């Protein structure tokens, strides 16, 4: 008989985050060569800017000398930051290039320079072991800047652990209850779905809801492509998860019975809900999202309407997630229990748990964020 491992660490309420991963730290337009932006990723404060030739840079946001925040300093020359306090200067590699009142520079003075890459309209940083930072590991979000897609998005500064957002996106039955006025419908929680752990390490949750009335959000969308449409639709939600925290959801509706489940989506409208969630601390997250579509690409008004519409929908999620985190913190002796609908989220948790196991012995003590109950695996 095989002994099964306890799922204790997998159902942790405050889920730790892997460090050896790319995380979106900002939208491309937020990082400039005019000034510095302070932002924390994986509990690590970073000072973000671009060099004169446009390359994104993420330095540790504390001067080597007395730890003053470099993000309060200024940009100098091609790629340097000057500390706001005593004027020490650092180049984009984090190496100190000038010290006040001396003719030499201490040969060991430097601040961390985290690998930083611009892709899919975001700046991505790698907070962990930089020798493993391969840009090809950035999750596929090509719809963000592919000419075949149009759309836009925003950032939510979410007051919750990042895993709660992943749980939220991996199980869309909550739409019926949280988003009843826009995208929710009772048939969602009544329809069949299937979760798959794919060979490439991603997770897919597929749900088809056939022959239903479109909810208001989707009625508007299908009418943007087929003016005056009325009637029933086949609706789909195909959730793609890429470790550690990116979820791209293929969503849409097509005129009922026109073959969309079999692959012909020509009589429908298709969107992609792009989500990438970056742990800021154990209890806060930067949640970057966008809604991309592959129809009516020329229409700026549709882009704006969709962004505003999804902003309203995600505002409902944010309120729930904030309240959930508060309830978690207010009930420290209560555990999580799982439902059938959590299978996608539980796969995500297991994948993250394996990433954490792989790097748990190699991470510096000061950013160990694993809760005591998860380390021992015993009852808390």
């Amino acid at each position, binding site marked *: 008989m095989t002994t099964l491992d306890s799922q204790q660490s997998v159902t942790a309420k405050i889920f730790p985050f892997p460090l050896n991963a790319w995380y979106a730290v900002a939208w491309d337009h937020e990082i400039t060569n005019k000034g510095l932006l302070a932002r924390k990723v994986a509990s690590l404060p970073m000072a973000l800017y671009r060099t004169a030739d446009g390359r994104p840079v993420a330095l540790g946001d504390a001067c080597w000398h007395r730890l003053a925040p470099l993000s309060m300093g200024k940009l100098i020359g091609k790629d340097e930051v000057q500390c706001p306090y005593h004027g020490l200067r650092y180049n984009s*590699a*984090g190496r100190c290039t000038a010290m006040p009142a001396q003719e*030499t520079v201490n040969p060991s003075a*430097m*601040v961390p320079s985290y690998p930083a890459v611009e892709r899919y309209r975001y700046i991505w940083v790698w907070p962990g072991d930089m020798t493993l930072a391969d840009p090809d590991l950035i999750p596929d979000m090509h719809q963000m800047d592919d000419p075949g897609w149009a759309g836009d998005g925003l950032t939510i500064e979410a007051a919750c652990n990042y895993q709660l957002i992943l749980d939220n996106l991996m199980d869309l039955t909550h739409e019926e209850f949280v988003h009843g006025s826009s995208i929710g419908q009772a048939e969602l929680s009544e329809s069949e779905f299937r979760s798959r752990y794919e060979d490439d390490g991603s997770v897919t949750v597929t749900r088809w809801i056939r022959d239903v009335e479109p909810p208001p959000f989707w009625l508007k969308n299908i009418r943007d492509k087929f003016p005056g449409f009325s009637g029933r639709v086949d609706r789909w939600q195909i959730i793609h998860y890429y470790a550690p925290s990116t979820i791209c959801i293929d969503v849409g509706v097509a005129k009922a019975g026109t073959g969309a489940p079999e692959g012909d989506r020509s009589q429908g409208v298709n969107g992609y809900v792009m989500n990438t969630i970056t742990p800021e601390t154990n209890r806060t997250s930067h949640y970057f999202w966008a809604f991309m579509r592959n129809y009516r690409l020329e229409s700026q008004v549709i882009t704006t309407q969709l962004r505003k519409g999804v902003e309203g929908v995600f505002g409902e999620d944010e309120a729930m997630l904030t309240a959930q985190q508060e309830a978690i913190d207010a009930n420290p002796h209560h555990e999580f229990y799982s439902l059938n609908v959590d299978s996608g989220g539980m796969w995500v948790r297991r994948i993250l748990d394996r990433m954490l196991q792989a790097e748990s012995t*190699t*991470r*510096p*003590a000061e950013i160990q964020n694993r809760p005591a109950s998860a380390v021992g695996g015993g009852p808390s």
Partner: protein
Amino acid sequence: MSADSHPDWHPGTVIDVRPVAQGIQRITIQRPPTRRAHPGTHIDVQVDIGGEPDVRSYSVVESNEDGSQITVSVLLSPQSRGGSKFMHRLAIGDTLLTTQPLQNFALGQGAERYVLLAGGIGITAIIDMARVLKSRQVDYEFVYVARSRELMAYLPQLEQLHGTRLRVHVDDEGTGLDIASLLTSIAADPRRDGIELYMCGPIRLMDAVRRDWLSNGLAIYNLRYETFGNSGWFEPSEFVARIPQLDIETTVGTNSTLLEALNAAGADMMYDCRKGECGLCQVDIESFSGHLDHRDVFLSDRQKQAGSSICTCVSRVAADKDDPTPVLTLSLP
């Protein structure tokens, strides 16, 4: 970097010792797991010097995945104050206090080309940088120099791992390193501002490289080196130190630093790094005899030539044949 600079002392056990070159002992220590030691890290070790505990730093040559097995390699130095003798006496099963790997010589990322320069036992600080650069598949050149081949630890393994990227220069085989031509070739490279040079070796080698680096107009911040402040231009010799304003006169023995001797004689000295980097311990020189042996990296060459101040934590005055016990007189501001 700051995140890895706070020492955390734990007992460790010696699990392997073996010679890897003439006078160089490879020592592996088992200690509580932390993380894989990154290139450029060292551990501090509590050594016993004539019954007194003292601390020495040794570069990490190898580490396992969780940093629970740390390998260092130690050259038995005839001028040693006792640290290397202690390390060479270690046998399997011995216990000693060590810190976790501490970072003071981090390998950067993003340079267009890297040049690594190891002189003699300085290989210990460079060897893991070379391994990581190879695994990152970046452009690097690895220069390893020594007086003779018997003194070169790890040479066969390095030749096998790095192939033509490794350049070996051996003085007594007539293939000694021509520093000027190495530096000229770096300066002539169109990527010159994107080249970082990391070095560890005797102070004469590092001083010469630093001088040529600057004279070729290369940016000083692309030159990275580590110094434990323990090698100079002269053999250490006994000298007399005086601070007339404090009525202090003391003899600085070969196994003590000027800072330690002045402190013991009652001067309330300010200092921090104790390896010639920060400049806090510098004191004005009123006069000296013998040779000034600046072993710090704080003062510039211009300041060293002027001879008007000294970093007391590492620098000394050295005897001359006409002046067996030189005298250094310091003045307070």
